[in-house]
């Protein structure tokens, strides 16, 4: 695997004015501990199941950004995609050759994607560096969009996905855009499964989430908005499909859980095809960025400190054990009577 390729396909937006978010800029700067008045860009990790339209949505976002004065930056993390229509600033494919990885390691398609992501994650600090350099430059940066592999589990259930997410969140306000294939999610049980999965992602990443109900030109997401705001309506729809069985009763209890889940996030109906809802999407992303700084950043820092503390404590435990062993084998602390000099055998070292 060659070293990091230089950025290619830079997106040049027209104009270079910094986004006008004076209040947030002050907060962000304070939180970041810098003296700069510049606001940090909001990083948006785009997640969704294969076919939900992540890449097409990014293409639409790119179009919108081009005709505004906002600065965007695009990162593609899908090693198996054939075409990236939005012109990525950083593309995993420049660094990792997915087919080559499969061949060299004797992997199938899933293993190939996984391994490519793993390889990329080891260099991710370079990506952060490039992003920061761009953010500090004259034009600045308002948004960073990260396209993830089509197979959602490869990102959400892997160590490298976690490393990448945490690296981004440590350096920038970060949020998740969870893209939903609206036409396929019209049945209440499918809707519930999808929402449970989104909820599981929320707990895995602990980042603000925006639900993007995509393909609104095909199926209006009004039904989803109704189900998410009116618990009774969702129950009615569910009761029509579910029965009085054990599962029926579990369904009902879980929909109460989901009702609480919805209150923690924002949702927007969008169409990547027509551009409908994109303005609202940007508003939600801005709000998510603010939310990150206010609610999520302290938690993230506390967790990182906790992990460091636990690792340190574990190291200290091991060191103590080791020192005890060394003391014993040196004969400082004889184990049994008459065992001083003979304590070279392996003692019960825990």
């Amino acid at each position: 695997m060659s070293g990091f390729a230089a950025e290619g396909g830079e997106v040049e937006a027209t104009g270079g004015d910094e986004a006008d978010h004076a209040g947030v800029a002050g907060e962000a700067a304070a939180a970041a501990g810098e003296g700069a008045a510049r606001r940090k860009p909001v990083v948006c990790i785009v997640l969704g199941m294969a076919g939900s339209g992540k890449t097409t949505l990014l293409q639409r976002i790119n179009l919108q950004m081009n005709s505004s004065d906002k600065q965007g930056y695009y990162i593609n993390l899908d090693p198996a995609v054939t075409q990236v229509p939005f012109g990525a600033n950083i593309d995993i494919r420049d660094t990792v050759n997915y087919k080559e990885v499969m061949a060299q390691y004797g992997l199938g398609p899933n293993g190939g994607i996984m391994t490519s992501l793993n390889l990329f994650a080891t260099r991710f600090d370079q990506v952060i560096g490039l992003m920061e350099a761009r953010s500090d430059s004259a034009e600045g940066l308002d948004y960073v969009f990260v396209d993830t592999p089509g197979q959602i589990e490869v990102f959400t259930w892997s160590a490298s996905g976690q490393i990448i997410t945490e690296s981004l969140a440590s350096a920038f306000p970060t949020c998740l855009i969870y893209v939903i294939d609206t036409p396929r999610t019209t049945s209440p049980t499918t809707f519930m499964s999808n929402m449970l999965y989104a909820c599981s992602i929320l707990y895995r990443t602990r980042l603000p989430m925006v639900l993007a109900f995509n393909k609104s030109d095909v199926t209006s997401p009004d039904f989803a908005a109704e189900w998410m705001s009116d618990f009774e309506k969702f129950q009615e729809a569910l009761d029509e499909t579910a029965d009085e069985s054990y599962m029926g009763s579990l369904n009902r209890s879980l929909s109460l859980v989901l009702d609480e889940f919805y209150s923690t996030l924002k949702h927007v109906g969008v169409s990547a095809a027509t551009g409908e809802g994109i303005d609202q999407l940007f508003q939600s992303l801005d709000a998510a960025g603010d939310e990150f700084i206010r609610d999520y950043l302290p938690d993230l820092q506390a967790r990182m400190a906790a992990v460091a503390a636990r690792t340190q404590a574990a190291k200290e435990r091991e060191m103590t054990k080791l020192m005890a062993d060394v003391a014993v084998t040196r004969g400082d602390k004889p184990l049994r009577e008459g065992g001083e000099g003979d304590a070279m055998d392996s003692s019960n070292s825990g």
Partner: protein
Amino acid sequence: MADDGGEEDQLPCFGQIVVGPPGSGKTTFCHGMSQYLTALGREVAIINLDPANHGERLPYKPAVDIEDLVSLEGVMSTLGLGPNGAIIYSIEFLEKNLDWLLDKLRAHRAKYLLFDFPGQAGVELFTHYTCIQNIVQTLQKHDYRLTAVHLVDAYHCSDASRFISVVLVSLMSMMRLELPHVNVLSKVDLIEQYGPLAFNLDFFTECTDMTRILDYIDAPARGADELDRDLQGAHERPQGDATSKKLSRLTREICDVVESFGLVSFTTLDIQDGESVGRVLSKIDKANGYVVQSAAAAAAAQQGRDPRAAANALFQSAFSGNEADYEHLASVRERHMGRTSGDDT
């Protein structure tokens, strides 16, 4: 139902459906479990229904292989689908051709079956498609008594929040499969590879007092040992944890559901440890009734002599085996986690 089958078709057939995210160890599980079962004298047949599992990469020899029905590469090249799309297509194709599967299974009816299910594209198959459910329901109609074994890499339980994430995904698959369900934390021998656990292993496996998890989520900065000792008394909740406050109501609701339905508990597994495999197997056998079936067979043998003794033996075998769980957990902790034996539950 089988009108042309022999006597064997009338006996129920027992087995496991192995599901879980990619990398959780399903194929390794099927292989290890089959070796264990064989050592116990139980005849096993592994049914590979994961289109992405290719013959030459499989550690086991499948008795039935979906590759004989539909080839992933063939679908990808003929229909121009990516790997995910091709897997979904293959499973839908299987759903439309269940006669093929039922026919192939007939030869193995007297055996214990292990179904290796797709990991990749598993999420889509569970949320957006009904093919997996339909396949499972059809098998049940033909009296295949199955336990869903949901594998998750134990690493995903390295903190409370991630554990809740795992619980949610387990719930999701439970609801879709509608089968007796056993959750397994696989690769427990590697559990502390990425750092020490936030709290005791038995928390995960017992999962009866889920509200305890709230304490752990709210107090991330404290050491694990401190938290362990603190369990009985009231805890102070640190003020500044805004995300926790944000999520605490949601977390509480999730915990309530899990507790009140008594649904979710996990068993640890180290596939290389026979004792560990045996414990998981005993839970699986209880879940689908195999243990009762085999005890019933033994009981029927002495039915003529003393029916009541036979019934007692039946109940005893079905409900035994729980008392040693704590000792087992203590030994798993000792073996795989960096704790001293001073801990107790």
